[in-house]
């Protein structure tokens, strides 16, 4: 019997339908990915170029320092000697006092929040993020330890887990209203850092609990047994021989949580954010005043300048500048967590 012609020759053959589908699917997937990338790139380019123009400048010191270090002010625009002059409120008042005669009868247009800087907003956002992440990490990690190490699986624990997962799906405005009702009104914290911290901590707890539990479960059982077999108590074991190895995973969750906390406007607009406040957060008499004060925050500032005041070219600059600084601030906080995680990973490699 003659052997059949080698099937191997088919590798030179014309594309089969299966191969064509393969190619088609490949391109579809590739284009989808590129499209997403393109959208992201456009957003960053838009904010980066327009916001960058506000934050950076071509002459030394190359950074618009007042924008980063001063408080928002009202912008005054008027015409003098045929030229348009722009001036922040404080400067304008002084100018007016010096040139009182000249300024009489000159038409002055004012634009709120369009002069000065956004320093109190940066400070407020950093404070809000750090406080709420700290609270969320403590509560979340303790709950995760309970769920992963102590609780015996049963209907109640399953129900508890389900509730936590569902909590993650609750819209942030609902958390905002809850925080307003619970912390601002019922517990009488007022519009304050504390109320904002707690509201946002609750909002990100599901992320942190779920991820921390995963991280704890991923620690090999052998480390627990090895420690217990040496006469450690369960708590000692968890503290010295489980939690440290889970920390990198827990920090990953907090990076997600940081992004969420820093970015959300809804939960803070009823609980912690002021549109405008003259004192900086640390200009307080006693520490209780510190946690019971409202603060200005970047996302809320963007919301206000973008939708609560008349729009023009001056407010546009503030919007883009704030958005740019906002992205930068969030990235910086998240990077800190990432670097910390990298360090821990190196220290406890397994």
């Amino acid at each position, binding site marked *: 019997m003659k052997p059949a012609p080698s099937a191997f020759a088919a590798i030179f053959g014309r594309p089969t339908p299966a191969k064509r589908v393969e190619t088609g699917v490949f391109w579809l997937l590739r284009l989808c990915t590129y499209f997403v990338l393109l959208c992201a790139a456009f957003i960053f380019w838009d904010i980066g170029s327009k916001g960058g123009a506000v934050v950076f400048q071509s002459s030394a010191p190359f950074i618009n320092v007042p924008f980063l270090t001063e408080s928002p002010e009202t912008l005054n625009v008027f015409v003098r000697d045929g030229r348009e002059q722009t001036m922040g409120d404080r400067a304008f008042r002084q100018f007016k006092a010096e040139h009182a005669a000249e300024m009489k009868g000159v038409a002055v247009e004012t634009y709120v929040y369009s002069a000065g800087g956004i320093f109190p907003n940066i400070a407020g956002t950093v404070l809000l993020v750090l406080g709420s992440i700290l609270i969320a990490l403590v509560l979340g990690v303790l709950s995760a330890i309970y769920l992963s190490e102590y609780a015996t699986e049963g209907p109640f624990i399953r129900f508890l887990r389900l509730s936590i997962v569902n909590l993650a799906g609750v819209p942030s405005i609902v958390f905002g209203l809850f925080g307003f009702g619970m912390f601002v009104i019922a517990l009488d914290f007022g519009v304050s850092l504390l109320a904002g911290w707690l509201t946002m901590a609750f909002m990100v707890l599901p992320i942190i609990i779920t991820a921390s539990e995963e991280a704890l479960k991923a620690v090999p059982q*052998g*480390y627990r047994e090895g420690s217990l077999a*040496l*006469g450690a*108590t369960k708590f000692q074991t968890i503290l*010295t*021989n489980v939690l440290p190895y889970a920390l990198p995973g827990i920090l990953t969750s907090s990076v997600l949580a940081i992004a969420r906390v820093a970015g959300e406007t809804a939960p803070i607009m009823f609980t912690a954010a002021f549109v405008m406040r003259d004192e900086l957060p640390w200009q307080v008499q006693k520490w209780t005043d510190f946690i019971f004060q409202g603060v200005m925050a970047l996302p809320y500032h963007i919301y206000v300048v973008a939708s609560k005041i008349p729009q023009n070219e001056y407010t546009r600059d503030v919007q883009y500048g704030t958005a740019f600084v906002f992205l930068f601030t969030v990235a910086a906080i998240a990077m800190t967590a990432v670097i910390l995680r990298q360090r821990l990973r190196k220290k406890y*490699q397994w």
Partner: protein
Amino acid sequence: MTESVAPSAAPRPLAVAPVAAASPAARAAIEIDDVDFHYGASKALHDITLNIPERQVTAFIGPSGCGKSTLLRCLNRMNDLIDGARVSAGRIRIDGVNIFDPRVDVIELRKRVGMVFQKSNPFPKSIYENITYGLRIQGQKTKARLDEVVEHSLRGAALWDEVKDRLHESALGLSGGQQQRVCIARAIAVEPEIILMDEPCSALDPIATAKVEELIHGLKKQFTIVIVTHNMQQAARCSDRTAFFYLGKLIEYADTRTIFMNPANPQTEAYVSGRFG
């Protein structure tokens, strides 16, 4: 150790030759009486009775799934960690104390009954921290004392010369055999009376295995050792007494020479000569 066990047709040779009676020097460190063990509804150990002599090496052998690890983990109550696992009958006494007595402090028990696991599990910390772990959690902070224990334990585990210059490097950077010896050193650092070893050489090459065996030989001057092994030669080489288990039952328990040369039970004979099943 010389002791003679009369070959017998009795199902449990132990009854014929209790250790203590055969050798007055060897006091029973662990007395296991009529122990039944359950994982949930399934029974893993049936009516186990045996006495483990002090300062000798006792080997548990038997086919996979016969309950060797289960029995071993009863001895330091490691099975407490498993939901639904329990000793359902009988008792285990160590130094005359029933370890399942509710008044027994499990932490204290585990300090006195150390364990080396099948899968070597050095902690992802430095060698030094691994060895001192047991003492640190007991609150020992004196540096000089810790240093001394590290050297002593590592010498005890025949590892000192290999690692003395890298005590503060991660234990995970060591070879498999060295890692297992770190685990042994870690166990002896807390000065237990009994060391349980669950297939300590199963992941090691012959050279590392030989080192660990040599080590076991040396350790028995100080410690009572119970070792689970699948390696017949290993049991024959390094144990004084051997217990053969099958399907959760103790089939035969006698001194090692008897088990290998002159077993009373045909099942034992079939297993040790490799003609099983």
